[in-house]
C-alpha cells in the first residue's frame, strides 16, 4: 500500500516534469529562429553605427574570428568581425571587456578602421552607477563619441588618458574610474590591432555567427 502510493506520487511528478519540458521544448523550437534573428539584427544595428557601411560589401557578422589576447582585450576569447570591400580590408570590430570598471566588467564594441583610426566605440553592457558612470552609454551622453577618429598617433600614446591624469579625454564629475578604465581598454585594443596588422584580416573565419548563437 505504502509502496503503491509512493510510486503513484512519483509517476504524477514525472508526468508533470515530462509535460513541462515538452511544452518548453516545443516553444523553444517555434521561436528559436526569431530569437537568433533578433540577436543578429540588434548586433547589426550596433555595427552599422560604428562602421562606414557605404564602403563595406560583406556582412561582418558572417566574417568573424575568435582571438585569444587576454592581456589586451580583457577576455579569454574575443570575437573579431572583419569588414571588407571586395578583397580590401576596411575595418575590424572587436568586443573587448574592460576588467576594471567601477562596478564590475564593462563590455565594449570597438571598430578600428584599416588606417588605425577608431570608427566608433559603444558600451554593450555595464553595471556602473546610474546618473554618474552610466554617461558612457550613447543614449545618456555624447562621451563615447569622443573616440571617433582617434588613433595611436592622434593623440600620442602618452595622451591616451583622462584629463585628470594629464591626458586628452574628459572624465565625468564624480566618476573618474569608469572613463579612465574605458580609455585604457580602448587604447590597448588599438595597440593589439596595430600589432596584429593584416593577420586579423587573413585568418580563416570561424563558424557563421548565427549558428554559434544557437548553441
Amino acid at each position, binding site marked *: 500500500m505504502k509502496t503503491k*502510493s509512493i510510486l*503513484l*506520487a512519483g509517476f*504524477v*511528478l514525472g508526468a*508533470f*516534469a515530462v509535460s*513541462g*519540458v515538452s*511544452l*518548453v521544448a516545443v*516553444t*523553444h523550437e517555434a*521561436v528559436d529562429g*526569431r*530569437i537568433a534573428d*533578433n*540577436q543578429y539584427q*540588434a548586433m547589426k544595428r550596433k555595427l552599422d553605427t560604428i562602421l562606414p557601411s557605404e564602403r563595406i560589401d560583406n556582412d561582418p557578422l558572417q566574417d568573424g574570428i575568435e582571438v585569444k589576447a587576454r592581456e589586451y582585450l580583457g577576455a579569454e576569447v574575443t570575437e573579431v568581425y572583419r569588414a571588407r570591400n571586395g578583397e580590401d580590408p576596411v575595418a575590424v570590430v572587436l568586443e573587448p571587456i574592460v576588467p576594471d570598471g567601477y562596478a564590475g566588467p564593462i563590455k565594449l564594441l570597438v571598430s578600428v578602421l584599416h588606417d588605425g583610426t577608431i570608427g566608433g566605440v559603444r558600451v554593450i553592457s555595464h553595471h556602473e*552607477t*546610474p*546618473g*554618474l558612470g552610466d554617461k558612457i552609454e550613447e543614449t545618456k551622453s555624447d562621451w563615447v563619441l569622443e573616440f571617433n577618429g582617434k588613433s595611436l598617433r592622434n593623440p600620442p600614446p602618452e595622451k591616451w588618458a583622462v584629463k585628470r591624469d594629464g591626458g586628452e579625454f574628459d572624465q565625468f564629475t564624480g566618476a573618474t574610474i569608469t572613463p579612465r578604465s574605458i580609455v585604457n581598454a580602448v587604447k590597448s585594443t588599438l595597440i593589439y590591432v596595430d600589432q596584429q596588422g593584416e593577420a586579423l584580416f587573413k585568418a580563416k573565419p570561424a563558424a557563421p555567427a548565427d549558428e554559434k548563437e544557437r548553441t
Partner: protein
Amino acid sequence: MSAPQSYASIVGEGIWSNNQMLVALLGLCPLLATTTSATNGLGMGLATTAVIACSNGTVSLVRHLVRPEIRIPVFVLVIASFVTLVELIMQAYFYEMYLVLGLFISLIVVNCMIIGRAEAFASKNRVDRALVDGLAVGLGATLVLTTLGALREFVAQGTIFYQADLLLGEAAKGLTVSLGDDYQGALIAILPPGAFIGLGLMIALKNVIDKLVRRLKTAAKPAHSDPAAHAEAAAT
C-alpha cells in the same frame, strides 16, 4: 469548504485589500531591482501577471490529481515551465525589453507571490476563480511596480515612461512625460534605497486611504437616524 468567494471580492482582494506587494510584502526582489523606470516596472508586472495567471489556472486544473505530499514540487515545475515560456516569448517578440529585464525574468520563478497564490488559492478553488485571482493579483502587482517605477524615474531623471516604445511599440512614444533636460534629479531615487523609501511611502499612503475609508463608513452608519449628518457624509 466555505462558500466560494464572489469574483468581485477576489478582484478587490488581489488589487487592493490583500495586495501581495503592499500588504503581504511578497516579491520584493523584482520590486526593488526592476522599478528603476515606469516602463521596466510595467514590463516586469505584465510578465509576472502572465506567469501567475497561467500557473494558477494549471494548478487549479490538476488540483484533484496532485497528491498533497508532492504538491510543492509540482507547483515549482509548473511555475518554472511558464517562466521559461514567458522568457522565450519575450526574447522573440520584445527583444529590447528582454535585454533590460533579462536576468529578472528568470527570477520570477522564485517570486513567493506566485507559489503563494498556487498554494493558498488555486489549489483549493475552481479554474475560473483561480484564473480571476491570478489576473487580479498580477494586476495589483503591476500597478505597484509601475507606480513605484514612475515615481523613482520621475524623481531621479524627471521623466515618466521614458523608452516606453521598447515595450509597447512606436505608438507609445507619446506616453513619455519629460521635465526637460535641465532637471538635475535626485540620484538616490534610482539607487536601491530609493526603492525602499518609495515602497514605504506607498504602503503608508495605502494605510492612510484605508483608514479614511473606514472612518467614512463608520461615520455614515449612524447617519440613517440623522438626516443632516447623512447629507454631510454623502457630500464628502
